[in-house]
């Protein structure tokens, strides 16, 4: 595999030619915030948090979906990018009912952590306070749509890793909702194998194991990548 040299924030780094800017940055110890990205899953470029500036490109590019090129000059942390990231995280907090104080994932939540990372002190937008449902029809898991950020990591984990595609999205815009099978209660979704990969993949407390209470939900999303790697490398 050919190597490429590029600079990220002025630092010269080398990367494999098929790597994304995000992979190259992380290997070089440069952190770029992400939400819809999860190691082991395909990229959708939807959360827009990993947008970076690339010299010569008028448009911001998602680091997760941009392959490195020789001599590429990348900026990951400019004031413009920081302002955008903070705004995006604020928009997410305003969209549904993210009440950390009463959430199972508090303390182990990627959205909560992102708020710290992007320096969000408060939300400048009107809270939309939508009336969202909670589905606890499944014997082991539940989904609280109040906490869903529509990152589709569960959809992809279910489709690409478990090979089932129980999850998908119905509706559009801010009315989009995760659904199981053809919009039946999760407990009645016959395709679901109850494998729990969606739970592993979920960055917030949206998908939770039943019985866990506030701040109890700890899980290791990197297990998805481990499963994928084990398969690909035939461990």
């Amino acid at each position, binding site marked *: 595999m050919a190597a490429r040299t590029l600079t990220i924030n002025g630092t010269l780094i080398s990367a494999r030619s098929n790597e994304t800017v995000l992979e190259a940055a992380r290997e070089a110890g440069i952190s770029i915030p992400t939400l819809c990205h999860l190691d082991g899953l395909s990229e959708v470029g939807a959360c827009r948090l990993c947008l970076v500036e690339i010299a010569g490109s008028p448009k911001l590019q998602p680091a997760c979906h941009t392959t490195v090129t020789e001599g590429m000059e990348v900026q990951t942390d400019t004031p413009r990018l920081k302002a955008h990231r903070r705004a995006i995280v604020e928009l997410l*907090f305003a969209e549904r*009912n993210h*009440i*950390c*104080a*009463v*959430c199972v994932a*508090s*303390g182990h939540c990627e959205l*909560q*952590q992102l*708020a*710290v*990372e*992007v*320096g*969000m*002190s*408060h*939300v*400048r937008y*009107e*809270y939309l*306070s*939508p*009336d*969202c449902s909670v589905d606890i029809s499944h014997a082991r898991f539940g989904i609280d749509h*109040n906490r869903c950020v529509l990152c589709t990591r569960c959809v992809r984990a279910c489709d690409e890793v478990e090979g089932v595609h129980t999850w998908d999205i119905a509706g559009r815009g801010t009315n989009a909702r995760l659904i199981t099978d053809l919009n039946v209660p999760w407990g009645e979704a016959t395709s679901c194998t109850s494998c729990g990969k969606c739970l592993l993949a979920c960055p917030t407390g949206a998908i939770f194991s039943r019985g866990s209470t506030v*701040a109890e939900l700890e899980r290791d999303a990197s297990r998805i990548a481990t499963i994928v790697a084990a398969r690909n490398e035939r461990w």
Partner: protein
Amino acid sequence: MNRLKLATVWLGGCSGCHMSLLDLDEWLIDLAAHVELVYSPIADQKTFPEGVDLTLVEGAIANDEHLELIQDVRERSRMVVALGDCAVTGNVTALRNPLGEARSILQQVYIEHGDPRGVLPSTPGIVPILLDQVIPIHMIIPVDLFLAGCPPSGPRIRAVLEALLAGTPPELAGGFG
């Protein structure tokens, strides 16, 4: 030495943030050397005074009384700090927002899920009128600092107060929940 005039305000919240403040124990005695507590739910002052240097506001804006008081707070304080998640985001106080407007909430609480012969509370001038939506304080007035947390821990409150007394910018990002 001129002591800083400090006020604390309790709006729509559980008072947990004030408990957290009280958790600072003996440091409060050190604090008293630097500040004069001019208004607080834990002090006996009925109206919000003029010329306050620093006001810590706990709780969200949930009724007309809060709406009125927060305007006085802003006009009479040099610096306003949103203390805790309810003041910063609405938090638990705002959990009622998705359920509809004030009348519908009262109906659900006092009639549907309450005493079968219950009545809607209505004592004009005594019980404040609920707003249709609970909102964080910065939606009404400019806020200078945001200290999130449910509640913010004593040490975090202390760190912020120490920084403010020392005239340095405090570290504030995140901390929700």
